[in-house]
């Protein structure tokens, strides 16, 4: 799965999070920071992670989520790692 394809999927998840301004979802890159760029309340990150698990049909370890960074690339990396682990 290409990284851009994963980013597109993450954006689809973010569209369902009502505390994120949809206007800010037009130019999402790997470097976009959930907290500083999207003003995502930190409590929403766990909801995003759970929805991403569902979207990409993967299961994260609790440690993965505990250590998760706040940039889009951190979630992309985590998805790839989780998929590799499942194979």
């Amino acid at each position, binding site marked *: 799965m290409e990284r851009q394809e994963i980013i597109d999927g993450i954006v689809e998840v973010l569209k*369902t999070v*009502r*505390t994120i301004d949809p206007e800010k979802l037009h130019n999402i890159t790997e470097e976009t920071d959930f907290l500083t760029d999207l003003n995502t*309340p930190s*409590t*929403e*990150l*766990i*909801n995003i*992670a*759970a*929805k991403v698990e*569902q979207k990409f049909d993967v299961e994260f370890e609790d440690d993965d*989520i505990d250590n998760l960074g706040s940039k889009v690339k951190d979630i992309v990396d985590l998805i790839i790692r989780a998929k590799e682990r499942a194979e």
Partner: protein
Amino acid sequence: MHNRKVAIVGMGGAFPDCTDIGDFKEKLFSGKSLIREWDKATAFGKQIRSTVAGFITEEEMNLEPVYSSLAPDYPETYIDRLSRIPDINLATADVGSIWAMLGAQDSIKMAGWTTEETESEETAVVVGSGGAGHEILRHAWHNFYELGKKSRLAGSHTVDRAMVYRDAANVACLIKNKGVCEAIGSACATGLGNIGYAYRLIKFGLQDRAIAGGVEGTSLETFIGFDAMQVLSKGFSPDKSSRPFDLNRNGFVCGFGSGIVALEEYEMAQARGAKIYAVIDSYFNNSDGDGNMFYPSFNGQQRLWKGLAKDAVIKPDVVKVHGTSTPVGDIIELLSVIDAIGDKGYHVSAPKSQFGHMLGAAGSVELITAVMMLENQQVLPCLNSDTLNPELENFQKADGWNGPNKPAASYRHLISPETVNKEINQVVCLNYGFGGTNSAMAISRDV
């Protein structure tokens, strides 16, 4: 600084089968019942004993639940179709907290507080709910315990949306006050208890303003708890179900709603030219002290009246009773009122006859009805109080009874099934809760 006067300068809330507080007022004084057959209850067929309630749907409050894609039937958040509450605040709220926020907004608008006044260190938020369970917790627990899902699948907001003082916390985050933020819990006295506590904060000089009240979000989870106790009204059409004082009453009708008021130190309110809807004369609360969780105490209520009158002139034109429509509570309460202030010169009003028992919101919504009675110079009716018992109650015949020795029917002149026009200068409000907690507040017209 310990005996300042306190004014009621704003009101708001959520009321069953009403579009807004104006509609609520109009329906109340025209003698309407706001109690309806509840489809959510009837859907469970024989699992549920009583099926009428003073419920409020999300649709009626212009709210729309957003269901989670992760956990079946879990309302992840709500959309406010009228854009009154920002999404960030909706994310941390259950329906009751949303009603509390809407009531706070309306109260502040009515009070005419500036942003600076609202956000001041001298502004408190004191709002609580009865909160005997709701769907946020039910779905979170069901997903974890029954379906074996990860805890995170119910989302990261089950704490803020379910914690005991969620209503106060959500209101404070919305209005950004910097003073006290707390919730008082005293079962069915919660609504009046929170306002009483806020009143004391201002009276004793600890705060200048407060948003205060009680909430009970529509919840079948709460309803079934009372249904199980067999204490809910059964066997009448919805509008006849709540019938305080009537000989044939057989239980209370569960109601839901919120009642929020804006309180302000009197001199400040007057100095800025605020409209003063009522002045609080006195507040008192106590416990029965008889070790009984449920049964009302005549002695506890006698002491309640004494405490209320300790530092204030108590000569009400209306006594707004708790009047739940349960077989025991109503008449003990009536007799304690008569024991305290005689049987002439006032009327008894039981607004639960119109909208049911709003539990944690009862005291605050009923205080709002008392303010409306002062405004309208009309006594709200005791709907369905068709027949008063011509015989003595069993407890009146028991050894040790030291209250009035006449049957309820002797007091027909105090209890009107219809709205009464009269001069009203003072209203006393009474509420009680499980655990033997009693609370009373007297309010007057500002003259």
